[in-house]
């Protein structure tokens, strides 16, 4: 797979732009020149918050809209907890709340099952929950690529604050 410059070798690129990989329900924070990557988003949403001036960024691979059943939930798993949590972590690293922006992608409905089960609508519900949490925190949405029935792999480049979205069906595009 090739998420950035096709002319550079993987090893050289890794040295220039260390890649930080984030698993399902996990999160990470990175500073320039790192690249934050999460793979295979289906109904999950990959949320990135970043300081537009400094480039410091945090990404979460959100799985569910709201925390309900768990007694000690992992913030990065839930849209409603992940957004305030990422803000707190970024501000702790010197980011300014007023300079924070958001980019996110995912929230697809991979399977079309009849009926309106909550489980099958989880992608759109995840997207709504992310948007609600961002609005509540007053963070502007700089870009998003959500919905449909496609899987997505995303890479956020802290250097130019661009979000590369790779899909199996429609190739790669940059937000």
């Amino acid at each position, binding site marked *: 797979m090739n998420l950035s410059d096709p002319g550079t070798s993987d090893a050289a690129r890794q040295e220039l732009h260390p890649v930080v990989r984030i698993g399902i329900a996990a999160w990470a924070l990175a500073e320039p020149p790192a690249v934050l990557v999460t793979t295979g988003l289906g109904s999950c949403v990959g949320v990135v918050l970043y300081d537009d001036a400094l480039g410091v960024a945090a990404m979460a691979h959100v799985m569910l809209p709201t925390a309900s059943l768990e007694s000690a939930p992992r913030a990065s798993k839930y849209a409603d907890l992940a957004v305030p949590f990422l803000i707190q972590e970024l501000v702790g690293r010197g980011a300014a709340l007023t300079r924070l922006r958001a980019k996110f992608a995912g929230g697809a409905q991979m399977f079309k099952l009849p009926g309106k089960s909550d489980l099958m609508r989880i992608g759109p519900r995840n997207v709504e929950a992310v948007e609600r949490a961002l609005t509540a925190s007053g963070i502007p949405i700089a870009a998003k690529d959500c919905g449909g029935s496609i899987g*997505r792999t995303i890479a956020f480049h802290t250097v130019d604050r661009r979000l590369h979205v790779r899909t199996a069906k429609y190739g790669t595009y940059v937000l």
Partner: protein
Amino acid sequence: MRSPFVWTRQHADLLSEVGNIGAGHAATALSELLQQPVRVSLSNARLCPFAEIAEVVGGPEALIVGVLIRVSGDLGGHILLILPPASARSLVAAVLPVESLGDEFTELSVSALAEIGNILCGAYLTAVSELTLRRFVPSVPAVACDMALSVLDVSLLPAGEVSDDVILVDTQVETEQSALKEPCLLLLLPDPQSFQALTEGLFP
């Protein structure tokens, strides 16, 4: 976070046996459909961390075809037939010889895959139902072809509500002749809330 139940060696053995019996019936059904011998591996049941789930199907970005059935009734969960695209094509060719084998799956070949998934998963569930004396209501099958993790993630959600790992019973299915180019997988993912009901059915 920790799982809401205690996972023991005994549970693994029991659910592996559930997988063996279910997949054995699924293999018989597939063998009848294809008119050729079908082999299944021993099933493996475990509590699988989310971080490792994609490795079971070849990595998070491997292109796979998934046929998903949501199970409700006495037991909630998901059952999936996972096919490498080459196997999905060869399987369609075996049951629909007139369908061409282009890169895109036609509507007819998607229907055929859904029906094959339905037959295999139905046979699997019937066997497990008889074994556990539990009544299952399967949904109609749905098909997706995309990156592995994106195809799987919806089936992890019930587990995700209570922990960061999922009960996974996986069995490899292969044919000796050409019908399946590469082995495919049958995955059973019981909801954590149903775990008790399932194991009680096995300890009457």
